[in-house]
Every structure is written in structure tokens, then in C-alpha cells.
């Protein structure tokens, strides 16, 4: 069925949005094979975004952990994360659709920043909703967005994180749908979003495939990516789905893999979530027995989300994708380790993928050659990590 991955996906949205989703689906189908559109996006990704990004052999980590570790350097994309791949694609699409304004949600502020960049470049108006808790822990990105002319609105409802920012962005969209495009930042939401975002992010996997074949003459044994909503993961995995390559999605294990009545002390929806419907899609969701959505927990704002993209839920169910998790503490260790060993400061989100590899390199599970999708750089996280360090020293 259209818009479904097995039983996952769908369009669980208010009637107000149905015409907009149908329009988006129609226009995207037209544009995805339009040569002018493709060329324009390629050009922007290259000369504005800095693509292709390198596939870098990390020699010191490889030596220490005994397997060949490659990093796909999405941290080098303009803005500092993979988010721009999708933001440019969707903003360009929205512009072709005649939309004047963009709304978006953001967790870590990376998608908001990417949206702000795309909007400024294409001369569109942008409003970004961001949970008040995330505004606090990712201040630098708020400044960046505002500098590029984007209005940032802190969201005070619910858990004050990504989930609530999505709620608010959707409310804005239903009100202004006529001239506004909702530029969703991950492979979540109602159809056609999970497909569109995955397609725009697949540039990561396409490049990676070519690069690893050039360097190794062979495909890797495994690929590891962190998963919040799952866009950097789907982006690198998608071109490898038919290959004999093990795929690992690493979620935020937060403090521990436990749940209270209203809170999950982690954000591991693929590992721990139950079947449900959140933000327009049937997927795996952190929820209580009644179906009330739990507040998720993670040190990394970009992974702090109670849902996950429907296609990832499907790939886990059919056994193609292995869901894993890494706790806050191990993610911080990995953050420090990559900085010290390779001179690369990773985003806290990406540190979860790095953490999984260094914790499990010796188990044999990852094979001899592994590629980590280094989805972003860590500058945005320094302030909150310094605060965390000072707090730990004081107690």
C-alpha cells in the first residue's frame, strides 16, 4: 500500500493536512525526475553544501580497536551536520511548489540551522520551533538560526523537547498550510515525508558506496549510524539494503533502559518502543499502556525523541536492521575518545554510533571493516558538556 513499509507508515493527520500531503506527494513525484531540479540541487549540495564529503580512514582508532574504521564525514557538511542534505532538497521543492514560507522543528538545532541556511539562500521566510529545554542546551544554534534571519520559537509544552517542537510545527502548518511548507527534519511524519527525507539523505550512502569500493575494492562488513528519527541512518543505509552488509542503528540509551509512568529514561524507540501512532505515522513509540506518549531522555537533543521513522521500524521487524543503544555515559566517552585519538570532535548524536563501535569492535559482531556515519560535529555540544563536567567535579 502506498506510503507504507510493511505495516508501518501511513498518514494519520487531521483532514486539514490531507490536501497538502497529496500535493506534496504529487509535486515530489514530478520533481524527483526533473533534470533541472536535480541539477540545481546537485549544484547547491556541492558548491553551497560542500559535498561530496570524505570517507576517512581513522588510523588511530582502527589501530587501538583492531578493526578498520572509516568515518563518513557528514560533520564537514556546511552547518556541521547531514541535516543540510534534506533541508536544501525540501526547500528547493517547496520553492518550486510556490510556497513562500517554511516551518520546521528542531531538536539539536542542527536541522533548524540547516533550514535557516536553505531559507536564506533561497530567499524564503522561516520559522523554527524548538523545545525550551533544547533552546537551553543548544544555545549556539539558536544564535546561528537568528543570525540567518530565522525566527526561533521556544516550545514550553510537554517535555519541552523535539516531540513538542514537532507538535507545535504541525499546529503552525495546519494554520498556514496554503503558503507554508513543513520542512520536517527526519524520516518521520506522515507519508510522503519518510520517503522524501530518505531520498534526499541517500546522497550519503551513494557517495559512501562509491568511496569504499574505490578504497577497499569491496563493500564494508558493517555500517553503524545513530538514530533519533533516523534520517542519517536511512541516508547511509538505503543504498546498501540489498547488499551483504550488516546495518546497525544506535539509539540513545540515556540514563538507563527503564520507564516510569510518564517518562522513559532513554530514547530507544526501536529497541524498546511499542506499536503506535505518533506524528502521523504508525511506528514504534515510547508510550505507556494507554498509549500516552512518554517523555524521552537523552544527553543528545537530536536523539531525544519518543518515536522513530516507520521504515526503520519495518527494517528492524524483517531483521534487516539491528537496533542497538548506547548510554549517555558511553556516548560522552566516545566523544572524548574520537576527539583525542583522531582530532575530530563529533556531535553527541554521532558519538552514540562511535560509542557502539568502540564498545563492540572486539566482539567480532562488526566484522573487519566498519563505516560509521559521523552525522555531525560537536561544537554545538561543548557548552553543555563543560557544564556537565563542572557539575560532576562539584559532587
Amino acid at each position, binding site marked *: 500500500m502506498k506510503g507504507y513499509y510493511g505495516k508501518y507508515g501511513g498518514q494519520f493527520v487531521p*483532514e486539514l493536512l490531507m490536501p497538502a500531503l497529496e500535493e506534496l506527494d504529487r509535486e515530489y513525484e514530478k520533481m524527483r525526475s526533473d533534470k533541472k531540479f536535480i541539477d540545481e540541487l546537485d549544484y547547491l549540495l556541492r558548491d553551497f553544501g560542500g559535498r561530496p564529503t570524505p570517507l576517512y580512514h581513522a588510523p588511530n582508532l582502527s589501530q587501538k580497536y583492531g578493526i578498520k574504521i572509516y568515518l563518513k564525514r557528514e560533520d564537514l557538511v556546511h552547518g556541521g551536520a547531514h541535516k543540510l542534505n534534506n533541508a536544501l532538497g525540501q526547500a528547493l521543492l517547496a520553492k518550486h511548489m510556490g510556497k513562500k514560507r517554511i516551518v520546521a522543528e528542531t531538536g539539536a538545532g542542527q536541522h533548524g540551522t540547516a533550514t535557516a541556511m536553505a531559507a536564506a539562500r533561497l530567499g524564503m521566510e522561516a520559522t523554527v520551533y524548538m523545545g525550551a529545554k533544547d533552546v537551553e542546551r543548544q544555545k549556539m544554534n539558536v544564535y546561528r538560526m537568528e543570525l540567518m534571519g530565522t525566527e526561533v520559537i521556544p516550545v514550553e509544552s510537554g517535555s519541552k523537547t523535539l516531540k513538542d517542537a514537532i507538535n507545535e510545527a*504541525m499546529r503552525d502548518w495546519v494554520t498556514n498550510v496554503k503558503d507554508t511548507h513543513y520542512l520536517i527534519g527526519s524520516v518521520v511524519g506522515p507519508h510522503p515525508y519518510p520517503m522524501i527525507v530518505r531520498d534526499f539523505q541517500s546522497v550519503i550512502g551513494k557517495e559512501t558506496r562509491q568511496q569504499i569500493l574505490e578504497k577497499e575494492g569491496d563493500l564494508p562488513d558493517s555500517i553503524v549510524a545513530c538514530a533519533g528519527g533516523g534520517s542519517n541512518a536511512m541516508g547511509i543505509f538505503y543504498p546498501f539494503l540489498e547488499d551483504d552488509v550488516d546495518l546497525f542503528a544506535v539509539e540513545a540509551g540515556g540514563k538507563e533502559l527503564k520507564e516510569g509512568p510518564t517518562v522513559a529514561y532513554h530514547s530507544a524507540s526501536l529497541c524498546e518502543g511499542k506499536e503506535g501512532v505518533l506524528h502521523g505515522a504508525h511506528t514504534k513509540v515510547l508510550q505507556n499502556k494507554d498509549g500516552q506518549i512518554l517523555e524521552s531522555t537523552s544527553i543528545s537533543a537530536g536523539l531525544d525523541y519518543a518515536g522513530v521513522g516507520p521504515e526503520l521500524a519495518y527494517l528492524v521487524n524483517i531483521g534487516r536492521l539491528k537496533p542497538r543503544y548506547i548510554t549517555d555515559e558511553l556516548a560522552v566517552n566516545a566523544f572524548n575518545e574520537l576527539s583525542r585519538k583522531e582530532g575530530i570532535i563529533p556531535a553527541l548524536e554521532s558519538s552514540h554510533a562511535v560509542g557502539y563501535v568502540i564498545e563492540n569492535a572486539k566482539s567480532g559482531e562488526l566484522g573487519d571493516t566498519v563505516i560509521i556515519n559521523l552525522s555531525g560535529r560537536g561544537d554545538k555540544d561543548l557548552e553543555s558538556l563543560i557544564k556537565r563536567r563542572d557539575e560532576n567535579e562539584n559532587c
Partner: protein
Amino acid sequence: MKIADKFEELDNKNEAALITYICAGDPDIESTKDIVYALEKGGADIIELGLPFSDPVADGPIIQAASVRAIQNGMNTDSYFRLLEDIETDIPLVCMTYYNLVYARGIKDFVSDCAKSGVSGIIIPDLPVDEAGDLIRESQKKGIANIFMVTPNTPAYRIEKVSQNTTGFIYVVPRMGVTGNKSELGNSLKKQLDGIKSDKPKAVGFGISTKEQVEEAVNDGADGVIVGSALVNIIASGDNVLEKIESLTRDLKRGCLKKGIN
């Protein structure tokens, strides 16, 4: 009582239906019962009882806040159905909630609990008719109405789909946006209502809070009006709630009496 029968009864009296929304468990479970009785006394024809959800994307700040209060004070799906069983009334009750709560209980069980506790209809704002096949099947078995929405941007082919699948009434949203009471109806409502070719009753909701707006909607051809946020605001104020609810309801109902005069 079936919703369709209620509309027929009112039609014979030349009245439009006053449909009132409150959030169950706001501010607490006990008060909800009294508020329902106050609504009934004031003249409400149908009562929508919201089962609050943690992430109500179709609702504005007023109903969001009510949902938070209700959940914090212990409202959940079990206590919702217990409350419904406790309420003694002849007027139709409609369950309004979000799809994940229905899905989590199991569609079949949810509908069957609705039937057992006297619910006449179900509205799920994040379940468009395209995804509602299972719910419609189960509801038909139990004789429960499924109410779907038509919005200003709904194209003709979707209006037809909604009209075919709606039982009870068509929920006509006269403007873009979420629930809340700070809008004007504007002069496009008549055109919107005329454009909805259907033999099902049409009730207009979202943004109606005064008797004047009720009259306007009824004059434009609405068979019913739905008022929510204005009532929830009274509950939120905590001041003389029952009295004020009853008197606003009575006032709003007066606006429903002119049907068919123009």
C-alpha cells in the same frame, strides 16, 4: 440515543443541534459529571467528551492545557470509560480522542468499551477517513457513529469520501488551524456549507464561542454547532463553573432556535 435520531428530532422542531465539548477529567474526574449535567440542563443536545492525549496536535492552547490538567489528575482510558458508565443522561455522548489511545487499547476493544459505556459516536481528529477502515468496520458492528471532518481546503472528491463514511454528522471546520475561540466566522461559511453535497447533517465547529456566531452559522445553513474552548475556558477559570457553564450553554442554545426562518 443515536446521533442521527437526535438530529431528526431537532429538525422536526426547527432547531439546530448544540454540541458541546469538554475534556473529561478536567479539572478532575468528579467534577466532569457535574459539568455534564450542567451542560444538559443548559440545553446541550449532544456532548463531546474528550479523552485527553499527551500530544493533541489538532488542539490550541486552551484544550492542550485542559488535557494536561486532566491527565495530571488521573484521567486515563479506564477511568474514562468508568466515568461514562456513571453518567446518567439521555442525550448522545460522543468520544473525542486521538488515534494512539484507540490503537493502544485495540480498535475492537475500544469500540466495544464505547458501546458498553453508552457512547454514541467517535471523533478522532488525527484519523482521516483514508486510514479509518478498521475503526469504521468495528463501529458499524456496534452501531456507533464515526464523525469525520471537512475543512475549507477539502477538495470535492474528499468531501464525497467523508460524506459516504460519516455517520452521525459531518464535522465542518470553517477555518484553517487548531481549536480555539479567537476567530471570526467570516462570510465564506455559507459557500462552504453549500459546497458540501451530502444528506448527512452538518455541524460547524472550531472557533465558535458566542450566541451571535451560533446564529450566523445556523443562518448559513448549519444543522448544528460545536462549542468547546469557550466552555473549557470557564472550567479553567475555576470560578462559579457550573453556573457559568449552564448559563453560557443556555445562551448558545438560543442561537440554535432560528433554523429555517430565513
